[in-house]
C-alpha cells in the first residue's frame, strides 16, 4: 500500500506543481489520478542487443533491438548460441536498477507451450542472457516448427512493471514431451477400418451355363442309340413294376428336396418311411421280372 502512495506523492512532486492552497482532499484525488496515469518510476531497458554465434565462433547476426518494432524473426541452428544483453533502467532517469523480476518468456502461440527463464541482473541493472542450443535450458518449452514469441517481463515492488515483446525465435524442433498413457483417451483417436478379404471371383454366368448344358451331351448319344435300337418297354406301366419305379423316383425327389431345403434328420425320417414300401415294391418287381425272364426259358 505504502509504495503506491509514495509513488503517487513522487508523481505529485515531480510532474505536478500544485498550489499550496489546494486542500488535502483534492491533493489526494490528484494523487490517485496520478497513480492511474503516471509512470513516474517505470522500468525500461537500455541498449538491448542480441548476437547469434555459430559453433565455430563466427558471428551470424548481431543487431540492436528496438522496443517498439520487432526485428525479423531470429533463427537458431542446432548448436548456435544466442546472446542477449541489456540494461534495466528507470525510464526517466536512466539509472540502472535491479528489479525483482527479470524474466524472459518463451511462448509458442500455436501449442500454448510456455517457458519462463529468469535472467540474472547486476545491482547496476546489467543483464546478460545466453541461449546455447547445444545445451538448451530446461525452461525452454518443447518446440515444433512454430516460432517462439520471446518477451521480457520486468516487475518490481517499487517500480511500475513493464513487458516488452522482443522478437520471434525459430529454434530446432525438440522431441515431443512423453505423453501419459491415458492421454490418448481424451481426444478422438484415429479411425480404424477393417480390411476385408476380397470377394471370390466368379466366372461369367454364360460360361457356367454353357458347361452345365455341355454336361448333358451323353443324353444326345443315348437318344441317338434309342432310335437305333428302339427298345420296347411293354411292362413300364405294369402294376408289378410301376410302384417300384415310382418309389425310386420318389427317392430321387427326396434327395433333390434335401439339397434344396431339408435337413438330414428329415431326410432320414422320410427316407426311412419311404424305404418300407420301396422294399416291398422292389421285391415284387424283381420277383416278377425274374419270373418273366426265367419263365421264358
Amino acid at each position, binding site marked *: 500500500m505504502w509504495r503506491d502512495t509514495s509513488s503517487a506523492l513522487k508523481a505529485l512532486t515531480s510532474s505536478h506543481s500544485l498550489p499550496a492552497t489546494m486542500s488535502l482532499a483534492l491533493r489526494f484525488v490528484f494523487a490517485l489520478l496520478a497513480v492511474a496515469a503516471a509512470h513516474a518510476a517505470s522500468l525500461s531497458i537500455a541498449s538491448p542487443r542480441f548476437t547469434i554465434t555459430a559453433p565455430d565462433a563466427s558471428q551470424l547476426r548481431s543487431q540492436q533491438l528496438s522496443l517498439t518494432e520487432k526485428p525479423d524473426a531470429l533463427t537458431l541452428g542446432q548448436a548456435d548460441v544466442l546472446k542477449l544483453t541489456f540494461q534495466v533502467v528507470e525510464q526517466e532517469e536512466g539509472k540502472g536498477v*535491479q*528489479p*525483482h*523480476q*527479470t*524474466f524472459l*518468456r518463451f511462448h509458442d502461440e500455436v501449442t500454448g507451450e*510456455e517457458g*519462463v*527463464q*529468469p*535472467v*540474472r541482473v547486476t545491482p547496476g541493472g546489467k543483464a546478460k542472457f545466453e541461449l546455447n542450443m547445444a545445451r538448451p535450458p*530446461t*525452461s525452454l518449452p518443447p518446440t515444433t516448427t512454430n516460432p517462439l514469441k520471446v518477451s521480457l*517481463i520486468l*516487475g518490481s515492488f517499487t517500480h*511500475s*512493471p513493464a*513487458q516488452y515483446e522482443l522478437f520471434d525465435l525459430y529454434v530446432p524442433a525438440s522431441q515431443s*514431451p*512423453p505423453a*501419459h498413457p*491415458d*492421454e490418448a*483417451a*481424451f481426444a478422438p483417436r484415429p*479411425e*480404424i*477400418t*477393417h480390411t476385408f*478379404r476380397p470377394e471370390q471371383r*466368379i*466366372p461369367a*454366368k454364360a460360361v*457356367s*451355363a454353357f458347361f*452345365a448344358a455341355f*454336361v*448333358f451331351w*451323353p*443324353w444326345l448319344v443315348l437318344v441317338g442309340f434309342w432310335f437305333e435300337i428302339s*427298345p*420296347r418297354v411293354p*411292362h*413300364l406301366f*405294369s402294376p408289378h*413294376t410301376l410302384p*417300384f*419305379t415310382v418309389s*425310386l423316383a420318389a427317392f*430321387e425327389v427326396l*434327395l*433333390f428336396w434335401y439339397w434344396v431345403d431339408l435337413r438330414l434328420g428329415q431326410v432320414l425320417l422320410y427316407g426311412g418311411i419311404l424305404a418300407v414300401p420301396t422294399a416291398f415294391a422292389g421285391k415284387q*418287381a*424283381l420277383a416278377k*421280372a425274374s419270373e418273366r*425272364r426265367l419263365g*421264358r*426259358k
Partner: protein
Amino acid sequence: MSTWSVARWLQLIQHWQLRKRCLHSSAMVSPWRFLSFLGFAAAALAKSSTGNSVLVVLDPGSSRDNFSRFFDGLEARGYELTFRTPKDAHPAVIEHDHPEYSHVILFAPESKTYSSDITPQSLVTLLSKNTNLLIAVSPKATPLTSLAAEFSLILPPPGTPLVSHFPERDTPATVIPVDVSPSNPVLSGSLPPVWFSGVPFAFNSNPHIVPILNAPPQSFAADSDADSGADAVVEAADKGGEGLWAGSSLGLVAGFQTLGGGRATWVGGVDLFSDEYAQKPTLDGNKPGNEQFAADVAAWTFQETGVLRVDGSTHHHVNETTPRDRYTINDRVTYTLRVSKYNPTSAEWEPYSGIDGMQLEFTMLDPHIRTALQPTPGVPGEYSLTFRVPDRHGVFKFNVDYKRKGWSYLQSTTVVPVVPPRHDEYPRFLSPAWPYYAGAISTSAAFLAFCALWLAGDSAEPKKSKSTKSD
C-alpha cells in the same frame, strides 16, 4: 412460494412420478400420494447427483462468516452443511469404512495436524467411494501438501506464495487479479477476473487433471517481498529440480477426476472463496468473478455439472430388434448406446445427445474397427452405429471409452462372440456350380431311366440272351 408456483410444482412432480413409475394414467391420485410427492419435492432440492450432505472442515482461526456468501449459496442450493474443525473427532468423515458425507470441503490450509479420521489415506478412500473433495492449500506445509503430489500437482517449496507485479495496482503483490479462461468446461460462460492469493501448482503430465484457473503469464512463486530478492529468484530457477514456478502453465485451481467418477478440486488459496475477495472491486471498479467462480467450482466438484452416465447399450442384427448371443462374420450389426446428463436445476437425468466425437471400438485384443458413434437423429440420448462385423472370428467387445476434461468418463464394454458361418449358412446355388448340379441331376435321371428300362423292358432277342446264358 406463491400458490401458483406450488400448484405448478405439484403438477411437475406428478408428471415426473407418472413418467418415472409408469403409473396407469387412469389411477386416481390420492391425497396421500400428493404428500409423498411433496417429500419428493424436498429431496429434489438436492442438486447434486451424488447427495446433499457436506462436511466443512474449517481452520479454528477462520470462521464460517468469512465465507458466508459461499456457504449460504450452497445452502440455498439445497446442501446440508456440517461444520467442524480439523481436530474435532466428531463427526467423522468416514465410519466403518462407510463415507458419512457426500462431499467434504477442507478449508483448513493452516492446520498441520488433523484428528485421526482425516488422513491423506482416508481422503483417497473417500474419493474412491465417490465422495467429492474440495481442498484448499496454502504456502504452509501440511499433510495435504504431500497429498497434492498424489494428484500430480507439484507445490512450490513452503512459504513461497504466488507473486505478480502485473497489472500495476494498489494491492500487495501476492493478491492478484486473475483472468478466467472463457472456454473452460467447468465454468459457466465468461467471468470477470477473480482475486486470488495463495500458492500455484505445476502439473505433472496427467490427463485426469482438469485445470480450472491458470496463473497469469507474468506471475511466479517467490518468498521475497523486496527487489533485493531478485537473486534468490534466479538461484531458485538455477537449482534445478522443478525450477521456477512461473508462467501461465501453472494452475491455481485444478480439478481431478478419478476413474470411478469421484472429483477432487484443489485450490491454491482459500481466500478465493472469502467474502472479502467476493466484494473487493476489480481494477476497473467492477464486481469480481469470485462468487460465481466459487459457485461453479463447487457445482462441478459436487457433481452437479458435467455429469454424464451410460444408461445402457444394446446391439442387434441389422434386420432384427433383439440382441443375438453371437454374430457371424460379415454380419451387419447395429450398436446403440444411451447416455443421460444430469440436470441440476430439475435434479433429473435427461437424455443427452450433445456428445461429439464419441467412438466405438470393436475389439478383439486390438480394435479391429474404431469409428464415430453419432447421435441418432430424432431420438434424444441415443447414439448408434451400423457396421459390418470383420471377417475374423473370436470373442469381440463393443467398447466405448469416452473421456473429456471436465466431463464424467463414459465407459461401456459388451462382450459378443463372432463365429464363422454354420455349415448351412454359406451362400448356395452359385453359378460356378451349375455344371456340377447338371451332372448330378443328369446322373440321377439316367439311373431312373436305366431302372425303368431294365424293369419294364422286354428283351428284343430273348433267344440270343437265352443262348448266351445256356452257353
